């Protein structure tokens, strides 16, 4: 525990430094308003994709329903912040959205996670569609028109903070005893069961945490874009998040960060190309997949621990 504390504090320091640096760059004028918009969108995508990476990369369960859980978070938070338009309301909205999303994930996870592979993909896609159709027909969600005039509460500092919080939670989960259990299920379900691991329980847990993370991403999305409609959360949105995970490397959180940033920047740069943009964007994806099928980083992970170890090792060598 003590050891982990050291690494977590280091990460915290890195995050604070990162925040200061980015704010400085904004102050000097290197990053303009447009740049900040891009960073917010990248941040939201990071949150969405880390949650999905936990489900796909670490617990080894395929999900095509991430947008459904994102939608739950978006709607719950939008409804709450529409009546409490303060940062406090935003916090309540995110927590409530994550809770509802986790509950739904628990209910659908227990029966569907008995499936695997393609069957699970179809089942999770169905769940997301059901959520979308319910939102499309409820009075409180304003049907197909969706919600608008949602207060702008997902400012850049809030998004940055939430990226840090969700990443720290997920990375710590992965490196805990629970995380090992989740990964053992991915590696070999039968062996895992014969070690005394309740495989269904751990699969569902990873799914629930991933869904809660998606809800937080959705909440930020709603309070940044300020209008949401059920069509925003269709299968294409799930696939967009999946692309980030696959591109970065399934099972690499660092990869998710890099891929979200690369895709976000690519999107920004290609903005000037008009309709050609989608062609170039897709072409870039195809080329990447052809030349680096395991994703940008594979399963490689940037680790403060390894950095520390390398540092102490070279110091020992220097002493000797």
């Amino acid at each position: 525990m003590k050891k982990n504390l050291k690494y977590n504090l280091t990460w915290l320091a890195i995050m604070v430094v990162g925040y200061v640096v980015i704010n400085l760059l904004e102050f000097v004028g290197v990053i303009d308003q447009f740049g900040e918009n891009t960073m917010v969108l990248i941040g939201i995508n990071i949150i969405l994709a880390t949650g999905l990476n936990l489900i796909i990369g670490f617990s080894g369960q395929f999900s095509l329903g991430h947008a459904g859980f994102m939608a739950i978070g978006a709607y719950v938070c939008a409804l709450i912040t529409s009546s409490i338009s303060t940062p406090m309301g935003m916090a309540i909205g995110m927590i409530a959205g994550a809770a509802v999303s986790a509950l739904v994930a628990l209910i659908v996870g227990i029966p569907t996670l008995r499936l695997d592979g393609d069957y699970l993909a179809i089942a999770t896609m169905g769940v997301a569609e059901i959520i979308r159709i319910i939102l499309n027909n409820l009075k409180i969600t304003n049907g197909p028109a969706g919600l608008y005039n949602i207060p702008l509460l997902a400012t850049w500092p809030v998004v940055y903070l939430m990226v840090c919080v969700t990443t720290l939670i997920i990375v710590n989960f992965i490196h805990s005893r629970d995380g090992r259990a989740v990964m053992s299920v991915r590696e070999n379900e039968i062996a895992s069961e014969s070690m005394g691991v309740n495989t269904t329980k751990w699969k569902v847990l990873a799914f629930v945490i991933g869904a809660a993370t998606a809800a937080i991403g959705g909440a930020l999305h709603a309070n940044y874009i300020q209008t949401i409609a059920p069509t925003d959360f269709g299968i294409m949105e799930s696939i967009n998040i999946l692309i980030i995970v696959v591109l970065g490397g399934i099972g690499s959180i660092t990869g998710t960060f890099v891929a979200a940033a690369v895709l976000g920047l690519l999107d920004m740069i290609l903005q000037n190309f008009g309709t050609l943009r989608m062609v170039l964007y897709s072409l870039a994806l195809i080329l990447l997949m052809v030349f680096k099928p395991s994703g940008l980083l594979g399963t490689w992970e940037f680790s403060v621990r390894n950095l520390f170890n390398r540092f102490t090792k070279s110091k020992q060598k220097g002493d000797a």
Partner: protein
Amino acid sequence: MLLEVEDLSVNYGVIQAVKGVSFKVNEGEIVSLIGANGAGKTTILKTISGLMKPSGGKIVYEGHEIQKQKSQKIVAGGISQVPEGRRIFAGLTVLENLQMGAFLRKDRDGLKKDYQEVFERFPVLRERKNQDAATLSGGEQQMLAMGRALTAKPKLLLMDEPSMGLAPIFINEIFDIIQAIKQQGTTVLLIEQNASKALAIADRGYVLATGNILMTGTGQELLANEDVQKAYLGG
């Protein structure tokens, strides 16, 4: 008596793989179940460890019937398994594999000592502690599977074909290790196709064919038996 299997039957759909098998394992013994492919050996092991449910009969462990218990409870009770084909967690490191073996253990302090014990028994695992298990050779993976089962501190260790697919030099080593494990007080139920080796180290053995027990005796008796020699030892 540590384990008593009474009149155990197991079905795969309509096919009866195990047909009323009974045997016993006393504390501190190595007991070998030998038999050809399809004799029902692996099915028996899987049923003992709770991965399969029997259609009839009883499994009594330390005086309690366990045939209806979930595998988690059985592992927690002290029955640990080295599964067929090793089934290590390839994407996890060697140390993480061992940690998974100890998944249900509550005594955190004893754990460190037990990892050291495993590393002393299998020095190659210490060298590769932080490598992905996928990078190990077949023999090393078998050692990892055994080490993983031992970190659970089992009273009864079930081993399913530990010699499968290994070079002869590793096979000898594996059987030496099994004897050393027994010396330390762990009871072993061993399933093998390599009948000569399995019987040579066994206190008692059972010969299995198409779901029935044909013969039983001490390891040496079975080794000397003409029928066994003809059928399983190539004599």
